[in-house]
């Protein structure tokens, strides 16, 4: 009994000492909100010197396209160029409120950090994000929570003409709002201040519904299993 414990401890130590170690992961993402949809998610393991976004810095054009339109094309081009290990769209489309999606991800030796992004809907340029989480070398299950960010690239006018409106949202959103604001005062990636919305199906300032489409952080729960 004792000697087998010792051997196990020794092998764990070997793993821990390995500076770079290819990992076999399961990544589960749950939408914690009551009324907000996630567009197709990008789950990427990459080197620690790469980064999809940084708080307090201007978003890249690729993050802008993801946060305003839900497009992963640009981010995947970048990911490919830095040899990231990626899974795009594990949920096969939108991840609805309260639902979870899970994906396997095998990472290369040098891809030691994990990033996740998806646009949140309805919003102008909101996204849920994980920035460079260090993947533990020790096998186990790790749980953490994600916040909603504002890409800082588009004014939050909250109009349906300014955002993708997929089928589940189409009957809910109002129309012909005047616009909550035309100003994007903070042009860096920052914590999203939330939707305002209004209670008028037609007109008002916002096409977002104030009693359905609000949230508070955190908006997602991530469970990573290192196998």
């Amino acid at each position: 009994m004792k000697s087998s414990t010792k051997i196990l401890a020794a092998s764990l130590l070997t793993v821990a000492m390995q500076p770079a170690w290819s990992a076999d992961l399961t990544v589960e993402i749950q939408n914690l909100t009551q009324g907000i949809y996630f567009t197709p998610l990008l789950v990427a393991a990459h080197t620690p010197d790469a980064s999809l976004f940084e708080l307090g810095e201007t978003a890249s054009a690729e993050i802008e396209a993801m946060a305003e339109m839900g497009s992963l094309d640009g981010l995947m081009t970048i990911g490919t160029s830095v040899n990231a290990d990626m899974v795009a769209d594990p949920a096969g489309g939108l991840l609805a409120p309260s639902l979870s999606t899970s994906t396997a991800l095998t990472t290369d030796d040098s891809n030691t950090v994990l990033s996740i992004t998806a646009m949140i809907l309805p919003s102008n340029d909101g996204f849920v994000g994980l920035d460079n989480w260090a993947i533990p070398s020790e096998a186990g299950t790790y749980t953490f929570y994600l916040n909603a960010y504002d890409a800082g690239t588009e004014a939050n006018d909250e109009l349906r003409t300014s955002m993708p409106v997929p089928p589940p949202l189409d009957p809910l959103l109002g129309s012909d709002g005047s616009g909550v604001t035309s100003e994007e005062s903070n042009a860096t990636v920052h914590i999203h201040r939330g939707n305002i919305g209004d209670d008028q199906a037609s007109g008002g300032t916002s096409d977002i519904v104030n009693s359905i489409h609000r949230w508070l952080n955190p908006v997602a729960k991530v469970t990573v299993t290192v196998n």
Partner: protein
Amino acid sequence: MLHLLKNKPLRLAILASLSLGLVACNDDDDPETPVTPAPVDVTYQVTVTNLTNGQPLSPVAVMLHGDDNFWMIGESASVELETMAESGDNSGLLALPTVLASASGDAPIGPGGNETFEVTIEDITDAKLTVATMLVNTNDAFTGLNAWDLSQLAVGDSWKGSMSAYDAGTEGNSEAAGTIPGPADGGVGFEDARDDVDFVAAHPGVVTSSDNLASSVLDSQHKFDNPVVTISVTRVE
């Protein structure tokens, strides 16, 4: 350490020699000058990043101090905390007797901005760290880090955390013209009267005129959700 010595006579002998040593040190005729070790600087770098859309942060107070809390949920704010949370003036906090070393910003940190402070203390590696700043486009919202234990940081170690907004509970959240010191209003900062719950709590957020509080001078740009700042701490020496 003494309890490890199971041999009683030996333990007694050591105790006796320790007592003798103490006596010798107190002897005025002792020709030897006591050696005072050179003081060792212990320095921390503290970076505060403003994560809000439209809430500048008042000049940040970074304080190393003894075993005191600068605020507690459910407890009444000190006048010094009230002053900082209502007006952004941190001078009262910096002057509190528990503060051993401190640094302060000269200017507000705008949305998306960040600032790094360096603060040094001699010989003490187990001080507490408090960081405090006001969200200036509010009546009395503040954020920071309260009495964080620095003994867990060895030289070269870093820690990073995301902080929520607190309400000092000393001024009602009227959002009315003339009551908010930040650029959204340019109103009065500190007022003596406590016309609110008079205890510190998690901040409920601002309502704003965009959300139909017609008397609010704030609009959708000033809304915020948690976290409102990240704070990272590195012990550099």
